[in-house]
């Protein structure tokens, strides 16, 4: 079977090969389309990651607060709900059910809904890691923070969270890579991200092998980049004399 990589240089409307592979004057080649789809994948993933990190750290933290039953219960419920409903179902819930309850959300684009769904879904998993990271710290650390006069907030800010964060970098890395993989469900609500592009482009051109190989390559590049970034972060925050927290592991 001969590979025909030239198909990426074809215009998406008239299927003629364009010079330089990029469309001009508003024309779009398959390469243009694929890169823009990659852009959507990256945007969905990064925004969802940001939301997941913020919500995950907050929820994970309040699950470890001493003497506050209600925040702990709320945090636990959050994790159970968002972790146990399949992601695709959650996306449809955001798409169909939530706007029915809150009419104000009817005008939200598929993009926003996917970011919310993916972000909250992942926040539950990150919250779980943050909680176990905090609870893995020696019990005396909380007392030590309080003993020097830190408030509860300061104890978390300056003692517990920085240390918990170092422990959970490995599982956070795999969570970040999961977000990229999971972002493919965005096609379900018509966001033209990579997976959506692959399905449509292979239908139009019949060159499924090339399309899927290229898309796979982009997913791999994305995953590799994240891995490098997280390794860099891990090196940057590594504390001399402290055992590497690799044992915490991923899933």
């Amino acid at each position, binding site marked *: 079977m001969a590979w025909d990589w030239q198909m990426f240089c074809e215009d998406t409307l008239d299927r003629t090969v364009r010079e330089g592979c990029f469309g001009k004057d508003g024309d779009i080649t398959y390469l243009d389309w694929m890169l823009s789809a990659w852009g959507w994948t990256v945007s969905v993933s990064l925004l969802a990651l940001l939301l997941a990190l913020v919500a995950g750290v907050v929820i994970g933290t309040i699950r470890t607060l001493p003497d506050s039953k209600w925040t702990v219960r709320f945090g636990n419920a959050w994790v159970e709900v968002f972790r146990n409903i399949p992601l695709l179902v959650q996306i449809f819930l955001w798409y169909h059910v939530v706007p029915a309850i809150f009419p104000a959300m009817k005008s939200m684009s598929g993009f926003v809904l996917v970011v919310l769904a993916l972000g909250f879904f992942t926040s539950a998993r990150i919250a779980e890691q943050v909680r176990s990271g905090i609870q893995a710290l020696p019990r*005396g*650390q909380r*007392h030590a923070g309080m003993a*020097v*006069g830190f408030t509860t907030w*300061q104890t978390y800010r300056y003692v517990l969270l920085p240390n918990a964060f*170092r422990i959970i970098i490995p599982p956070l890395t795999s969570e970040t890579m999961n977000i990229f993989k999971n972002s493919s469900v965005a096609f379900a609500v018509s966001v033209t991200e990579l997976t959506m592009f692959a399905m449509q482009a292979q239908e139009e051109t019949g060159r499924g092998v090339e399309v899927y190989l290229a898309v796979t390559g982009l997913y791999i590049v994305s995953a590799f980049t994240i891995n490098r970034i997280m390794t860099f972060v891990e090196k940057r*925050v590594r*504390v001399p*004399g402290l055992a590497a927290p690799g044992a915490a592991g991923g899933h």
Partner: protein
Amino acid sequence: MIELKSVSKWYGSFQVLDDCSTRIEKGEVVVVCGPSGSGKSTLIKTINALEPVQKGEIWVNGTPVHDPKTDLPKLRSHVGMVFQHFELFPHLTVTQNLTIAQVKVLRRSLDEARKRGLKMLERVGLMAHKDKFPGQLSGGQQQRVAIARALSMDPIVMLFDEPTSALDPEMVGEVLDVMVSLANEGMTMMCVTHEMGFARKVASRVIFMDVGGKILEDCTKEDFFGNPDARQPRTKDFLGKILQH
């Protein structure tokens, strides 16, 4: 300086402190000893409210610690505490360990905090290690940094919870030396420790706690060591055991 009035504490139905009362005057060094599980750590941690109590009153320098309206972080900022397992902040350098609470809690400038922190580091003899991380220090060195960290806050009293019991024997001395010099300078101290040599040398009083969280003895050092016949049988028993080695 410190007063405990009929303090009791329970974990569920399990009583850890049973009607404990004592006073510590300014400049006194009080040693607390007793068998494992008798509530020594719990007792000492009630003083800076790391362990809340259900009954009784605790006063520190005129502040009612048991009062829910008391600003506990502020109180704790001038009660120094040293833990069995050092509990330095592992992600911060020695200098940062010494300065962070001065800056964030006492609102000192970084310069001022560093000056004060390094002075305390000098005093525990560890100036050469100011840029290391806790994980790069020996246990004895970590504990001395922990003492310096507490001293940097200009505490009105120092609490020690078994500061040497997690140390290899050859490092116990260097930590005790620092504690002895503190005591000799007139620092008010409460020390949970089984180092009876330290107690004999600098303690003003000795408190003996027994299982069930009761204060069984609360007497001067002279009485505690020099007048065994006036002691409770449990105390004699305990002293016999720990003085053997």
